[in-house]
């Protein structure tokens, strides 16, 4: 499972990095979204990958059967913040499109 997770993170990061280097604002925002998914999975992964394990400590429960709750809390916060900032970026992107008349990141088309 670790391997699948690692490959998934790698593919998403690679695609994300390629996309944020593209000249269109829409590509940049999709790239940033992909990167943030990859980062969220990465945060989730640093706690150790376990399936069917609760992050709650109960009476008489063996600690080794638990997952680490901290990365889960971190990833929740990261998702919320990432979502909000991406939404904000989307608004700016639309404003830039409206004001400059182009979706190029520099606000003007490159001379051909």
């Amino acid at each position: 499972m670790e391997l699948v997770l690692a490959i998934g993170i790698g593919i998403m990061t690679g695609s994300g990095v390629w996309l944020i280097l593209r000249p269109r604002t829409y590509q940049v925002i999709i790239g940033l979204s992909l990167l943030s998914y990859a980062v969220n999975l990465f945060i989730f992964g640093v706690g150790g990958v376990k399936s069917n394990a609760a992050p709650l400590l109960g009476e008489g429960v063996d600690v080794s059967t638990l997952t680490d709750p901290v990365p889960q809390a971190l990833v929740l916060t990261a998702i919320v913040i990432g979502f909000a900032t991406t939404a904000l970026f989307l608004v700016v992107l639309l404003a830039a499109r409206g004001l400059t008349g182009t979706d190029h990141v520099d606000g003007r088309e490159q001379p051909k």
Partner: protein
Amino acid sequence: MSGWQQHLIIAPIVIPLVAGALLLFFDERQRVVKAMISVVSSLALAAVAINLFRLANGGDFEGVYLLGNWPAPFGIVLVVDRLSALMLVLASILAIPALVFALARWHAAGAHFHSLFQFLLMGLNGAFLTGDLFNLFVFFEVMLAASYGLLMHGSGPMRVKAGLHYIAVNLAAALCFLIGVSAIYGSAGTLNMADLAVRIGEIEGERRMLLEAGAAILGVVFLIKAGMWPLNFWLPGAYSAAVAPVAGIFAIMSKVGIYVILRLSLLVFGQGDSAGLGLNVLLYGGMATIAFGTIGVLASQALGRLASYSVLVSSGTLLAVLGLSNGEVTAGALFYMVSSTLTIGAFFMLIELVERGQDAGASVLAVTMEAYGDADEEEQEVEIGVTMPGTIAVLGTCFAACGILLSGLPPLSGFVAKFAMLTGMIGTEAVADQPIPASVWWIVALLILSGLAALISMTRAGIRTFWASMEGTVPRVLVMEMAPVMLLIALTLMLTIKAGPAMHYMEETVRNLQQPGTYIDAVINARRAGVAEASGPDGGGGI
């Protein structure tokens, strides 16, 4: 120590949060009410910051605040020591003039200026206070989200374009921040800075490599924020596009990155096997930044860009000097940070006033308005208040003061700061009997050359603006806009007069930073309210 003083620690976060939220309830048309709330909040913030500063300077103040009353490595802590108190005071002192300047006209240029301004202060203060890495991320995002809004305040294609680049760069940086933080958590199992400093000694082999990689990625984020070359191409565009009061308060935002680097490098990477991690990057990167900034300063046509490149020179100087990791030099660097932040803040606001008389587009607009007898002009004059008498003389004096401060000439604080740093590098007895390394000579040369470049550029701009101006139009400047600039310059003057006590404080700060044991002990052994022996009236929330 009484209980209410302990609760002062969280006030710099709560006051702007409450004020910013309260401001949202008022319509944009109730401008006076909004301005009042914002001013009251900023004044309260300054009072709290100065109080904390005095407590921290007193020595025996236990500046640790356990959020939710959880014991230290598990819950989030806020910590006030000399360094964070200094940064709090600097932020709140810079905020008041910026706010007053904005009240004259800029706060009406768009929606929610005051709320965003308060949230920016909240993010700044939180970043200075927190003792937890993930909490630092949250406050960074609060600060950045507010700064996105403020940067685009006043709108227009140029600001939106600059904002687009700024947001894209900072979103990418935020993702790196998360990668760094989670790599550190994955290897050390803690996010509390003090706890991390304790545990770093026990981490071996691959885990240490992961930890160092995480710390390095984290460092890149702060260097983006601080504007180290080659991570700083976004900065001149963004800072020169922002409206004047916003650019003024942004002067401290690039110092947040420097603050965190200083804090982490001395607390976590001060001693042990990973000691001095990345110091060379700071040293050479900082030197490259000074060189880049200096060339930028010389090449700038517009004053706004000149000021933005001065931010880079200031950041580069701080980074290079921190890279030397020499206590005495670091104390000088702290003094330089205070002086240059105040100067650049004043300069950004001054530029707007100076260019008001000079800007071709604006003067055309003014002529048109006169010709067609626009009624708005009259109305505004009544609404806003008194214009400044002897405008050109005052503007010119302030401009000259900024030039002297930026280039580090006597008699103002820019000189004291550079002198303190240079003395630490080449002038003390400790370094007299051993050869001075080449890198130090390079920094000395770059420091002096960057001052020369600032002097040349400022002189050139001053002559063009004040002496060679053909039109003979005097910009209409209000007292309310001139006073903040004069206040900031007066503060640098005070810093010059009180240079002795100020330097003493900086030296004490650096001494504290170099002995992280006190900080670590204070955080780890922080008493929970209402749990240990009866510690006073602050027992609320006891478990």
